[in-house]
C-alpha cells in the first residue's frame, strides 16, 4: 500500500501541492484526474521520488520515503515501473536493449535468460518481431506498449503511468487501458495513472482522485463519479455534451 500523508510541494512562489493525502492499494488501478496545472504530474513525480515533498510523507508498504538514504531510495525505485507520457524510450537503443536495460543493470541474468524475459514481456503487451527496431520506427501506440513492457520487466510492485493515452486514437487507447488493468490484476501491482482521458477514467478507474489547485477535492470510483454532485468534479468531468448525456442516461437507469 502507498500512503500519501498531507504532502506539500512548491516551486519558488508557485504552490503546486497544498496538503494532499491519499491511499493506493494493491491490485487496484487508481486514476488521478484534474485540469492542467492542478498538480497531477507533480503528485506522480513525488510518488516516484523524482520530486521531494516540502512537507508531509509518502509511505511505501510501511517504508517512509523521507527517512530513507539515497541508496535506499534507489533500491525502492527498483520496485517501481513508470510509463512516461512521451514513452521516454532510449532512442539510440533498439527495443530489445531498451527493455533489457534494467535487467542488465540490476540482475545477474545471462544473455539467454534476459532475451527470454524480454520476449515474454513483449508478448505480454502483444508485440512481436520488434526486437531489433528502434523507437522511431514504431507508432505511438507501439511505443507506449514498449514503455509498458520496459516498466514491468522487473516485476515491479508499483506501476505509475503519466497520461498513457495522450496522442493515441480511441481504439489504441482502449487497448492500452485494458493492458494496464490486466497487468495490474495479474501481477497484483499498485497502479497509479495520471490522466485527462475521461474514457480511461470511466473504463478502468477503480479509484479516482480529483485534484484542483493542488488540493484533493473528491475521491471515488468510476461508479460513484456518475452520482456525485461535487461541483468541481461535475464541472470538470461533464464539461462535454457527450458526458452530460452519458450521465443523464446512467442516472435514468
Amino acid at each position: 500500500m502507498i500512503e500519501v500523508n498531507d504532502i506539500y510541494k512548491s516551486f519558488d512562489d508557485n504552490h503546486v501541492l497544498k496538503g494532499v493525502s491519499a491511499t493506493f492499494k494493491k491490485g487496484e488501478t487508481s486514476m488521478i484526474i484534474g485540469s492542467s496545472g492542478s498538480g497531477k504530474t507533480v503528485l506522480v513525480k513525488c510518488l516516484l521520488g523524482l520530486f521531494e515533498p516540502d512537507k508531509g510523507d509518502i509511505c511505501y508498504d510501511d517504508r517512509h520515503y523521507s527517512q530513507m538514504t539515497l541508496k535506499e531510495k534507489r533500491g525502492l525505485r527498483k520496485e517501481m515501473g513508470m510509463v512516461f507520457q512521451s514513452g521516454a524510450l532510449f532512442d539510440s537503443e533498439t527495443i530489445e536493449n531498451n527493455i533489457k536495460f534494467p535487467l542488465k543493470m540490476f540482475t545477474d541474468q545471462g544473455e539467454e535468460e534476459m532475451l527470454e524475459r524480454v520476449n515474454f514481456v513483449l508478448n505480454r503487451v502483444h508485440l512481436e518481431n520488434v526486437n531489433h527496431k528502434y523507437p522511431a520506427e514504431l507508432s505511438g501506440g507501439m511505443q507506449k506498449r514498449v514503455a509498458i513492457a520496459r516498466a514491468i520487466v522487473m516485476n515491479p510492485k508499483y506501476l505509475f503511468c503519466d497520461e498513457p493515452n495522450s496522442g493515441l486514437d480511441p481504439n489504441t487507447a482502449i487497448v492500452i487501458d485494458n493492458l494496464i488493468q490486466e497487468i495490474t490484476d495479474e501481477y497484483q501491482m499498485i497502479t497509479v495513472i495520471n490522466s485527462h482521458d475521461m474514457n480511461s477514467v470511466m473504463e478502468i478507474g477503480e479509484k479516482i482522485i480529483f485534484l484542483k489547485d493542488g488540493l484533493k477535492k473528491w475521491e471515488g470510483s468510476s461508479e460513484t463519479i456518475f452520482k456525485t454532485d461535487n461541483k468541481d468534479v461535475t464541472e470538470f468531468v461533464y464539461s462535454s455534451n457527450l458526458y452530460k448525456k452519458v450521465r443523464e442516461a446512467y442516472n435514468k437507469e
Partner: protein
Amino acid sequence: MKYLKNIGIYFIMLGQVFKKPQKISIFRESLFKEIEELGIKSLGIVAFISFFVGGVVAIQTALNVDNPWIPKYLIGFATKRSIILEFSPTFMSVVLAGKVGSYITSSIGTMRVTEQIDALEVMGVNALNYLVLPKVVAAVLFYPFIVLLAMFLGIFGGWVSGFATGLFTSDHYITGIQMDFKPYFIQYAITKTMVFAFVIATIPSFYGFYVKGGSLEVGKASTQAVVWTSVVIIVLNYFLTQMLLS
C-alpha cells in the same frame, strides 16, 4: 549569485559522478562507446587542423626570421616548441571543446527534455554516474593520445610546408626539431591535456543534465557549454603554465 550557485551544483554533480559504477560490465561497455564517440570520431578534425596549423606556424616563423644572423634551423625549433607547448594541448582542447562539448550537452540535454533521464532515475540508476563517468574516463584516457598525434602531425605539417614553399630546407628543419629536446615538455603537455579533458567532459555534461525546457533550450545550453568550457580551458591554461613551467 547565479554563477556561484551553478559552481556549487557543478561540484555536487561531481560527487554523484564519481561514485562506484552500479555495474562494471555496463560501465565498460559505455566506456568503449564513449572512446569511439568522443575520441576516435574526433581524429579526423584533429589531424586536419594539426597538419595545416603546423604548416602555417612554420611558414610564419620562416617569413619573420629574415635576419641573416639567425640560423634557419630555428624555424624547426620554434615550430616544435609552439606545437608541443601550446598548440597541441591548448588549441586542440579548445577545438575539442567545440566539437565534443556541443555533442555531450545536446545528447544529455535531449535525454533530459524527453524524460529519458527521469526514466533512468525511476529505474534506480544513478543517471549522472551512468551518463557522465564513462565520458570523463574516456576523455581523460584518450585525449593525451589525440594530442600526441596532433604534435606529430603539426611538426610534420611544418616540414611539408618547407617543401611546398621553399622557405627552408628539410635538413634545417630536422636539425631544429632535434635541437634541445626536453621530454618534460611532453609530460607538461599531457598533464594539461588531461586537465582540459576533464573540463571538456564535465562542463558540457553539467549544462546538458540540468537543462530545462525544450529543444531551443538544449541548443542554448550547448552554446553556453562550449563558451564556458573554452573560457575555463584558457584560464586554467594560464595557471597551469605558470605552475608547471616556472
